[in-house]
């Protein structure tokens, strides 16, 4: 595995498991932006690419096809090739896309280069409470076309909404809720929350912001699996209600960045 921190890309052998790659990235203050809908600790990049397994974090980071920016591969007839890593290009059809999702018919990647992202400074869950599922569409349309792209989002039915809100000590008669997780710089995240509330004022959308959260992985599990959600929510209600301070790798990394910037500025002045 080779991280390019400047360009925020990583090159991995496609035999590498996602879990191994993610662990390495986390230790460096990054994450892959990819959480496959299929939960399997042995899942490798080779399978993800061949099958184009969807990404829960699609709204913010795109699918695996968007994350893949280049790599080395072998065609089905055995010819080895390299597809250059570039943010975008206009050099014909996107040949990377012929290998992503084609189940190896045209060939496969041996090594792949994918985008990575710095750990977010802050993450926060939000609930938009609504009377009807059609309002959920309207909320989603407004949110996404305003370029407020949550890391994760799901629409929850009345039964589940009631369960969640009761656990949170809230009474509700709402029939549907959109639960979403924002991940961003703190100031931007707050601005996006404000923007959503403002957009929803006219439509009488009701928002509930449980808390800001530092440890989020378990909560992801909850919302990614609605069945699991109801059973285990109680255990995690405390975390929902009170949250945790954002004293994690992301913050440390940001501090380092600021120190580097200050140092760079001093050097420039000295130079």
């Amino acid at each position, binding site marked *: 595995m080779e991280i*390019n921190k*400047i*360009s*925020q*890309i990583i090159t991995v052998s496609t035999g590498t498991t996602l879990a191994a790659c993610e662990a390495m990235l986390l230790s460096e203050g990054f994450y892959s932006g990819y959480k496959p809908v299929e939960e399997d600790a042995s899942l490798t990049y080779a399978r993800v690419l061949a*099958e*184009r*397994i*969807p*990404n829960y974090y*699609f709204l913010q980071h*795109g*699918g695996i*096809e968007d994350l893949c920016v280049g790599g080395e*591969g072998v*065609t089905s*007839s055995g*010819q080895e*090739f*390299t*597809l*250059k*890593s*570039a*943010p*975008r*290009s*206009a*050099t*014909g*059809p*996107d*040949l990377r*896309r*012929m290998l992503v*999702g*084609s189940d190896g*018919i*045209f060939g496969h990647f041996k090594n792949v280069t994918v*985008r990575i*992202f710095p750990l*977010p400074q802050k993450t926060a869950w939000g609930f938009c409470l609504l009377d009807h599922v059609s309002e959920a*569409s309207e909320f989603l*349309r407004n949110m996404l*076309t*305003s*370029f*407020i792209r949550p890391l994760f989002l799901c629409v929850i039915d009345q039964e589940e909404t009631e369960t969640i809100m009761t656990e949170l000590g809230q009474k509700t008669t709402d029939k549907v809720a959109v639960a979403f997780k924002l991940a*961003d*710089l703190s*100031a*931007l995240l707050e*601005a*996006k929350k404000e*923007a959503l509330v403002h*957009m929803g004022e006219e439509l009488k959308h009701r928002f509930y912001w449980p808390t800001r959260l530092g440890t989020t992985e378990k909560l992801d599990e909850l919302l990614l699996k609605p069945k699991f959600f109801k059973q285990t929510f109680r255990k995690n209600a405390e975390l929902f209600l009170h949250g945790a301070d954002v004293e994690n790798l992301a913050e440390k990394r940001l501090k380092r*960045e600021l120190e580097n*910037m*200050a140092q760079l500025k001093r050097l*420039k002045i000295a130079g």
Partner: protein
Amino acid sequence: MMKIDPPKLKKTALSKIEEIVGLHNLSFSHIDRLNYSRDSNFKSALQNHYNKTECFPDIIVWPQTTEQVQKLVKVAVRHQIPIIPYGGGSGVCGGTLPIYGGMIIDLKKMNRILKVDTQNMLVEAECGILQKVFEDELNRRGFTLGHTPSSILCASLGGCLAARSAGQQSTKYGKIEDMIYDFEVVTGTGEIIRTRNINNISGLDLNQMFVGSEGTLGIITKARLKMYPLPEATLFEGFKFPNMETAIDAIRRILQSGIKPSVVRLYDSLDTLILLSSKHGDSKMKWPGFFKPVSDELKNFGLRLGLKVPSLFQVASRVANAGCLVVFLWEGNKRVVTEEQKISSSIALGLGGQSLGEEPGKFWLQNRYHVSYKASKLFTAGAFTDTIEIAATWDKLHTLYKKMISALKGSVFVMAHLSHVYSDGGSLYFTFVAPMKGLRRSERLYDKVWGKALTTCQKYGGVISHHHGIGRLKAKYMPDEWGEGASLFRALKKTYDPLGIMNPGKLYGDKKDKKKAA
């Protein structure tokens, strides 16, 4: 006097074509064949200037439906007629030159907006529509595609899709390949395919096979694209940086913090000098007064001295210490963009940038489409110009900038800007100007400059096009660009254009094409 040979079309083919589109929708007149013998590639303009045209189409047709396009392709298959899909003719890489003659299929009569779907925020249009007409109509209804290329006045939707076009706001809205939802395409076998949007679901993405294929696999006839509401707020701020390296670093950090400004443009010191000295008398950016005449000299096309020793301009810009201008535009929800501007500004200032306020951004917005008209003025003043756009990841961009400027500055007057930036890299855009020295010498110089530029780009890890495409101009560099990966393209070609009639000699030329290539 220019001699135009009669069209080489069999009577049976001609009568079939006439039957399909009608007599009023085809032409093989000399004047039409001459007009369609070129596009906006500089080399064909140069040849026209010297009364030379190397190739002509045999016939031009203007179909009005996808079914007519399908029938035309079937006639072409039967009679082995090369097909050249045509939109606005705004391509700068010779992508529509009829180098083997054949039939130009011009989609300009397929120019309707078919459906504005406000529920799903999608708009469907026929591919002959001009981008400006398309965008204006959407704006009138309160929406935008977010696709605003400099060529918007003359580029068609089909052309944008064929060449993987980028608008000036690509950092926020993406390139055309990011905007596409699905489309209808007539392949080189005469089959009509309706692609599916399969973002983030399993399967092979046909959208991305045809987008960028430059008409070598099929003709995209209608497409559905994502659209957005017009932004609630637009904010501007310009910065002056001491050099390209620091400015690139600042832009990278802004993008990687998760902020996507609508527009980011970084001009190198020479580009900055010319841009601001001519228009920003009251700008906060100041430079020694004696450089004003240099700018005026350029503005008035007194280029001869400078063009004899092009590297003088680079030296002059260094001495002037004009710095490097960065223009930012943020647009969208007012609360969000206000915060985005604040954060971007603090990063820029933290890395040595000096704020210039709103003025550079507003000036840029007012003049955003004017650049296309400057080439002809230079041309009549005895000089020619062209642009080279490449892309690379952040770690390579500054080296590429230095190496490419260094490779070209001895031969031509060259400057560059960085635009179209993403979290992992961006596109450098070089503009060069050279004196016209007769057809043969000018062509030789032109080829030499392109050769130096693209081989340097490839040597230092860039891709040879970000949004102009390949066409005929860069086809001979594609074997090095794709390497053995070209066999993937051959597999597509075998499926969708087994007879090789679709825009032959473009994108990826075989050996025979390479000899004819620029």
